[in-house]
């Protein structure tokens, strides 16, 4: 009952106003960043796409229970689709970006149908095999540079924007928009009816199925949606670097290991987790990147310790201790006075 008292103790309207003010301030700050100076834009783009990848992987593994170690398949696929559309089909880069997401989603469907034949932990390695297949195939396509990769043609780069700073600002706004899209996707899905099905499925597949959740279709939907969004992010990543190679595009360390560490350290299966994890990740990297491999050792060890000692991660520990959540989606007993006694209304709060 403590949450009930805490919720009722503070007027809902004041809380909503405070939240709206905070959101507006953050949005204004983020949107105004390019006018402050472009020095930080590259890093901001990187933070935005790592956060987005983390939110997507968290949805897939933490909520839908599909533990994939092969998400680099769709990052690379999105990147390569962008380059193929621009170089081979002459599509302008900004028009090719959404198409790259579509390509990733379309390819994800047969991949999912194949992978879902493997159960639980085996699916994890199976998805890795698929990513390796994509990498090896990409290395065979000589029209896209084969094993050594290729740069985006200068004419196409000029087509994005005249000046370098304008192009960086455009990339930044795309990154921001994609991060917002991923947050909307995850939060929207979890607050919807399917979200309840997802969490039920995560806790017990058999029980969820017996209550009418179509487990297979729900998993398939989430896998394809996540793959499509991951493909969009891949296209953005290589639109920023302007160069693609099989090893960079399908890197398990960059696009899956780091993402998993972010989610685990922040708190898997919580919406706030990826945010906290991304903050820890970039702080950590800023401090220790000079130490080479030791930095990855420390990151891996930290993720192992979190998983063993505090499986709900940083955010889980905080929200358990203080009862604070950034993106509320837990269904609580209704606080509306109109509710008939004994018949509490469940509402997303």
């Amino acid at each position, binding site marked *: 009952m403590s949450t009930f008292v805490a919720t009722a103790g503070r007027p809902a309207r004041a809380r909503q106003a405070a939240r709206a003010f905070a959101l507006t301030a953050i949005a204004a700050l983020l949107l105004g960043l390019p006018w402050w100076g472009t020095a930080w834009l590259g890093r901001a783009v990187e933070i935005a796409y790592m956060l987005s990848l983390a939110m997507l992987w968290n949805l897939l*593994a*933490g909520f839908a*229970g599909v*533990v994939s*170690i092969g998400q680099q398949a769709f990052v690379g696929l999105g990147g390569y689709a962008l380059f193929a559309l621009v170089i081979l089909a002459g599509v302008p880069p900004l028009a090719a970006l959404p198409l790259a997401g579509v390509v990733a989603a379309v390819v994800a469907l047969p991949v999912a149908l*194949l992978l879902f*034949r*493997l*159960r*639980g*932990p*085996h699916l*994890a*390695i*199976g998805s*890795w*095999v*698929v990513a*390796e*297949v994509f990498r*090896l*195939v990409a*290395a*065979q396509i000589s029209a896209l540079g084969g094993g050594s990769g290729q740069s985006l043609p200068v004419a196409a780069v000029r087509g994005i924007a005249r000046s370098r700073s304008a192009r960086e600002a455009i990339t930044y706004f795309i990154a921001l928009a994609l991060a917002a899209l991923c947050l909307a996707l995850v939060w929207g899905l979890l607050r919807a009816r399917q979200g309840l099905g997802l969490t039920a499925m995560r806790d017990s597949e058999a029980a969820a199925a017996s209550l009418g959740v179509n487990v297979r279709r729900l998993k398939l939907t989430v896998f394809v949606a996540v793959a499509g969004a991951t493909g969009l992010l891949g296209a953005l990543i290589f639109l920023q670097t302007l160069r693609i190679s099989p090893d960079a595009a399908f890197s*398990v*360390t960059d696009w899956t*290991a780091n993402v*998993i*560490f972010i989610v*685990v350290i922040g708190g*898997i299966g919580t919406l706030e987790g990826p945010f906290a994890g991304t903050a820890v990740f970039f702080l950590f990297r800023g401090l220790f990147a000079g130490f*080479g*491999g*030791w930095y*990855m*050792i420390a*990151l*891996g*060890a930290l*993720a*192992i310790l979190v*998983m*063993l000692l505090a*499986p709900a991660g940083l955010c889980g520990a905080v929200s358990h201790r203080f009862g604070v959540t950034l993106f509320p989606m837990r269904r609580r007993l209704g606080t509306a006075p109109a509710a008939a006694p004994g018949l509490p209304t469940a509402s997303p709060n």
Partner: protein
Amino acid sequence: MQWLDIIVQGALVGGLYALFATGLSLIFGVMRLVNLAHGDLIVLAAFLSLACVQHLGFSPALSLAIVVPGMALLGYAMQRVMLNRTLGGDILPPLLVTFGLSIVIQNTLLEAFSADSRKLHFGGIETASIRLLPGVSIGWYPLIVLLAAVVVIGGLQLALYRTRLGAAMRATSDDPVTVRLMGVDNRHLFALAMAASLSVCAIAGVLMAGWTNFDPLSGPERLLYAFEAVIIGGLGSLWGTLAGGMILGIAQSVGGAFDPGWQILAGHLAFLVVLSATPRGLFPRMAD
């Protein structure tokens, strides 16, 4: 004759892949744990052997006397301290902990041994071969590795089906809760299984080191081969795993004959074809 040779060479590589896969298969069978650090542990064993050769002046074969018990101890400790805590209904903790372990091992090896590609020298036996038919010869070294795989798998089968410990392990595989009621300490049992798994990793790692180049980041590739051999062969069947390893080796060898760039890809594709045709593998014994 050329194609026969290609197929024979591929089948011989299957012995090495079966050694990669046996430990993975055993662990999954006993405790439903998929160890994502498996490939990196094989590479770790190869580097331990290299260290024995370089610093103690051992021959690679003699280094097995240190590497095998060393890896077994590591396996026991790793299971007791870390992995036993992750077992339960949820598939996430064991996967994520072993994945973290994989990254830690790779980068520790990178710091300790640099990114250089290495190979062990077994003193000439690697190049010796017997001629079976005109155009088809079998190397002594691949033959020894295949023999080692047969001995290891046969030994494990005997241990699992003829000893009390093996019976306890099979019983735990079937029903871990009831086995505890019978007075079996499954934490100890799991740790013994992991010790056995890492002993096989040690043998696989040392034999691999004499066959192909290895470097600190080559573990995941070994994990994928091991996994593919297990799934192609069918879960729960160790002899099936040997067959799976051979099929994988033949697919790679045939693919490589067309184009060197297709060698590894052909192996992965063979796995995906088997998966789409019979998801339970070719010789399954286990339901899950």
